[in-house]
């Protein structure tokens, strides 16, 4: 009896992610959701530039590689090409989504573009070797903030869910993490809702996943998961930041 197998939407290839990296978990959750909703045949994923640049090899649905930060714009084009028959998701890191691609992020949210955005926030640029990200914490040591992030010189981290929640546009914004089993289960629920919203035509749904980067944080995988609890979550509290349909029901 098979008790554990790869989701069908996840390609049977070896991933390039570092040991202990949470990208693998989130990829799996996305693939499980695609399986459960039975949408692989109509799903088109948009990969970013960053560690998950080669996500196009890891999902079995059609995939498009976007320029750095432009995934929401590309997704807009793909979705509008055939709104009835295309389920479109972007998978983006913090540099991609919250730095170089902030305009695309904000405006696709403001338009309530009917797409699903999976946002990996690990507070660092992974692929290029550990530079300061727009979400790096105050005092966080990175390759380009070797003395710790000095908020006088380079400003403060951006809380994406909170910021987008000020817009009337987006349908659903939730921050989750994947540092323990319970949190992984919650993350999957949020991701599933973000896809279901799109199927239901509700609009822009973004799930921010607070993630770890043991390699560039310079920690063991276990310590990195602990660091999420101790450092990341106080700055980036988990929770639902917008759920327009739920708000409507309450009224």
């Amino acid at each position: 009896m098979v008790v554990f197998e790869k989701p069908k939407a996840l390609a049977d290839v070896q991933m390039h992610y570092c040991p202990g990296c949470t990208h693998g978990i989130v990829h799996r959750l996305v693939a499980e959701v695609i399986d459960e909703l039975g949408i692989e045949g109509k799903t088109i994923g948009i990969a970013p530039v960053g560690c998950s640049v080669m996500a196009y090899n890891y999902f079995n649905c059609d995939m498009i590689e976007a320029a750095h930060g432009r995934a929401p714009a590309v997704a807009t084009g793909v979705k509008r090409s055939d709104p009835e028959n295309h389920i479109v998701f972007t998978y983006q890191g913090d540099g991609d989504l919250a730095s170089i691609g902030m305009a695309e992020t904000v405006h696709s949210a403001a338009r309530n573009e009917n797409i699903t955005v999976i946002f990996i926030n690990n507070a660092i640029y992974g692929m290029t070797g550990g530079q300061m990200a727009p979400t790096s914490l105050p005092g966080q040591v990175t390759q380009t903030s070797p003395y710790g992030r000095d908020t006088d010189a380079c400003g403060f981290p951006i809380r994406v869910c909170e910021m987008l929640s000020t817009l009337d546009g987006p349908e659903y914004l939730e921050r989750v993490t994947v540092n323990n089993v319970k949190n992984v289960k919650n993350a999957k629920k949020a991701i599933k809702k973000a896809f279901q919203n799109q199927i239901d035509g509700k609009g822009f749904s973004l799930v921010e996943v607070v993630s770890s980067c043991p390699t560039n944080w310079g920690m063991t995988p276990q310590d990195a998961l602990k660091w999420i609890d101790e450092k990341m979550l106080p700055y980036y509290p988990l929770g639902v930041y917008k759920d327009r349909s739920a708000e409507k029901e309450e009224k």
Partner: protein
Amino acid sequence: MSDKVLMKGNEAIAEAAIIAGCRHYFGYPITPQTEVAAYMAKRMPKIGGTFLQAESEIAAINMVYGVASTGKRVMTSSSSPGISLKGEGLSYLAGADLPSLVINVQRGGPGLGGIQPSQSDYFQATKGAAHGDFHMLVLAPSSVQEMADLTVKGFDLADKYRMTAMVLADGTMGQMMEPVSLDYEIGEPIEKPWATTGTKMERPHNIVNSLFLEPDVLEKSNFERYERYSYIEENECMYEEYMMDDAEICVTAFGIAARVSKNAINEARKKGIKVGLIRPITLWPFPKAPYKKAADKVKEIISVELSMGQMIEDVRLASECKVPVTLCNRVGGMIPTPEQVLEAIEKAAKGGNK
């Protein structure tokens, strides 16, 4: 002629695109091409199409990239500074071998420049839109009719060769009105088995991508692309020759400059000067053949441009430097007058511009 209507060049482009089956347009306001967006904003919702004013030129070209990935005809339009912003997207479109149509209604530069007509994006369009080895098909209309015709042609060529086609116009072409006939036979869309439209669980997944981390693989993709480019250079050059049969002096120009030049040539002919015109219609591929032929019989080639001399470099290469190639130009939004061109022709007749 009664079926002809007066249209602005910008409007002719938009309507021709719709006739060609384009149902997705993304743009950002910039003078002097805004009529394209305004026209699309009016028409697209009525025919089930998409008009979207993007947050930036960068977003617009990436929305184009998204639709192009799904195999549908899609376009954006802008003017010089906006095209610079689209550069990144143009490189990605080339790297992923996606067809698209981009309109550049040029204005004077560099920088914010001005809003009056210019041809100073010739280098950008034909040689260096962005990083990496790639070309776009570059089509240079010289009338409102050609604005429409080359838009339709651009979509066809883009699909055929999986490339971006750029219509390189200028503010005059965009703003002027002339009679246009929009009578086209549009063929069936060609098959695009590479498009990412969902696997329907019937085929392996398609990937639209320009990332190749293995250098040998990337090299191969470049070589293959350039084989396609060679084929295009041999088969898709377009140009017009005007009074070149007995010409002893050759004027060459494209777009608005060609029209000004025709006036000057007509005047020069009245004075008995044997002068003709070579007007490239495709700027890439650049039509070398007529220049090679001309170089054996004319004593000077005068390149009339709204730039500091950009096309002139291709003219020199194509004529293999057999005869002097001189520049007659205005820039910054100014346009050469027929008198200025006539003066250059007369000087050439008397012994040469220096």
